[in-house]
């Protein structure tokens, strides 16, 4: 039995920045090993776990994609013993000031991320948020030691430790998208005792925060009939209450919009209703901002569904998720997989697709 809190805390204590996912891929692989029939790693580092169908002859396949990469920083310069940085993934520079980080040099170094004080700045910049060139990391080490231990291109991850919050919530960095990796892991555990009519490909994708290239290439290699993308979505919180946002602790969202196949979305809605599982419909007219953008247009086109786990403070060093929402997402995925039948494609999409 996988303990969600323990597993997720491990997941968010690891780096695994976009393009450098192996530190997080290895523990995911260890956890998935007993839950799948085959494990492999794609050319670009995505983890593929195959749970084979228990039927003979032709059968369909479904890809469940959760990206495992995280946002962070990279060392872009050494200046008088201080490190200059560039961002990996979409970072609001205003949330970086005053953070503790880990510099992955020859060894792991603690660092303080700070900005040039106003006293040394051009007067017009007083009180302004930092630009990327105003930011630096102080490792507290002498210059010669810094230049010996750190080189350009070394990665910098957030050092925020996992923090249990009230209301069954967990806070920390990289919950986008390790929360979804955890949901998929719970799903794999739940479907273990079931016979399956479809092949199930559990995929932890790479570089979602940069180019979606992991999902794009894994979809090409696997060629699934349909794909379900699980990612985090915006939870309601201070200053964010509009239609983009969903109450934390009230279940996953089911995406509706141009990246998602409408029939698949309806299908998930019906399943959730049957299960009496709380959920919300999430309307994303132009883009889901997820791996579905890449998977939808892979091969000759792959119908996608997108499930969202509400997350407060996305893309900050302290994101917050309610564990119950992860469990519900895992259960919804498991239900979806275990009720797939030989003729489900026709049932969902009609004769045209068959």
């Amino acid at each position, binding site marked *: 039995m996988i303990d969600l809190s323990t597993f997720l805390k491990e997941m968010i204590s690891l780096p695994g920045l976009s393009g450098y996912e192996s530190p997080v891929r290895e523990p995911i692989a260890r956890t998935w090993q007993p839950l799948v029939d085959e494990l492999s790693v794609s050319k670009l580092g995505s983890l593929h776990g195959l749970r084979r169908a228990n039927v003979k002859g032709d059968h369909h396949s479904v890809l469940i994609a959760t990206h495992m990469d995280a946002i962070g920083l990279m060392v872009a310069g050494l200046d008088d013993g201080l490190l200059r940085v560039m961002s990996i993934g979409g970072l609001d520079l205003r949330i970086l000031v005053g953070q503790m980080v880990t510099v992955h040099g020859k060894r792991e170094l603690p660092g303080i991320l700070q900005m040039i004080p106003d006293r040394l700045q051009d007067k017009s910049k007083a009180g302004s948020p930092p630009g990327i060139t105003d930011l630096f990391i102080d490792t507290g080490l002498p210059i010669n030691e810094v230049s010996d231990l750190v080189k350009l291109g070394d990665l910098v991850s957030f050092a925020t*430790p996992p923090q249990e919050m009230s209301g069954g*919530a967990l806070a920390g960095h990289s919950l986008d998208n390790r929360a979804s990796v955890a949901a998929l892991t719970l799903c794999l555990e739940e479907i273990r005792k079931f016979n399956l009519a479809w092949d199930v490909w559990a995929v932890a994708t790479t570089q979602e925060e940069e180019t979606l290239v992991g999902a794009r290439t894994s979809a090409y290699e696997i060629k699934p009939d349909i794909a379900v993308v699980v990612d985090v979505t915006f939870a309601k919180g201070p200053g964010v209450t509009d239609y983009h946002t969903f109450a934390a602790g009230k279940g996953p969202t089911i995406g509706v919009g141009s990246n998602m196949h409408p029939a698949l979305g309806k299908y998930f809605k019906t399943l959730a209703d049957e299960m009496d599982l709380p959920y919300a419909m999430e309307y994303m007219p132009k883009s889901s901002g997820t791996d579905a953008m890449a998977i939808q247009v892979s091969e000759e086109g792959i119908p996608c569904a997108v499930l969202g786990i509400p997350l407060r403070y996305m893309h900050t060093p302290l994101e917050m998720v309610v564990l119950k929402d992860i469990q519900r997402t895992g259960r919804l995925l498991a239900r979806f997989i275990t009720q797939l039948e030989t003729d489900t494609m026709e049932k969902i999409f009609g004769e045209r697709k068959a």
Partner: protein
Amino acid sequence: MNPKIKTNLELPTIDSSQISLLERLSNAVSVSGDEREVRQIVIDSVKPYSDDITVDAMGNVLVTCKSKSDHPIRVMLDAHMDEVGFMIVEDEGDGIYSFEMLGGVDQRQLPGKAVLVGKDHLAGIIGAKPIHLADTDELHAAIPQKSLRVDLGPGNAGKVNPGDMGTFATRFVQAGPSLMGKALDDRLGVATLIELIKRHPNQIELLASFSVQEELGLRGAKIAAVALHPDLAIAIDSTPAIDLPRPDQKENSVYNCKLDEGPAIYVADAGTISDPRLIRFLAQTAEKYAIPFQYRQPGGGGTNAGVIHKVLGGIPVVSVSIPGRYAHTPVLLARLADWENTLKLIYAALNDLTPAILAPDRN
């Protein structure tokens, strides 16, 4: 008059026990106005070495270490126990609370920080809006403190009450020659003062004030000085080392003080002209014992010396600070060697101090 020179005076060093005391002090939560946690650590630490310990009306801890000489000089040493933080001012429901800052914290240091709230240290977050939902013009302005909230998690409504205080949840770490932690302003001073009490020289009467509410306008030290009635006072604090490269590549001539150059002796700041006799004495002591020191660039800022020198009939004061980067942020950085040299300097000075110091004219 020759001061009695103790040529073989053994100067104190910082070892792991002092570092672990500093770690406890740095991790403790003692926001201005509620200094209980640090006060308890102070009382427990100094009790065996003190002749008298009083907690006064505001919560200052006043410690007396008596002298063995007749008519000893009465020396007040001050370090403030409080740190910057915030007070919870409104419960908005669903685990969300609004807060007001206590002490000068740049609002740009706040978003995305872990905090500890209330006496049970409940885990909270000062959250930040996702970049995806921020407008472009929003990104070019600092996030206003007024828009920020403390979030304790959606199930936590009611566990914290308006009036409770909190601060950053940073944990102390040692990194090579450096110390990183919150509230090193002025827990470094508190740790130094505890150490000086443990080793107090017998020829002076040591009057220590571990003061409250420095960050709110030097409030505690003012009444402490009246109660202690010293002949002279030294404020031990932390002062910003702004010894960073300038973005315009010009020489940085406004560094205030520098890391690795030892204790920073104050000549003048926004609130105090230090007593020249005390400045000279500290500098001579440093030279005599080969302890590195620096003069803090005269300028703005201030310490508890600013209120101490104005009470009673006037008290000769000087401040000695441990240089630290990133004051009033979630993580400060100081050097172990600067701390140790500050301890050595004040210890040596106390050992050499006699009433004769105040005999000459101030100038």
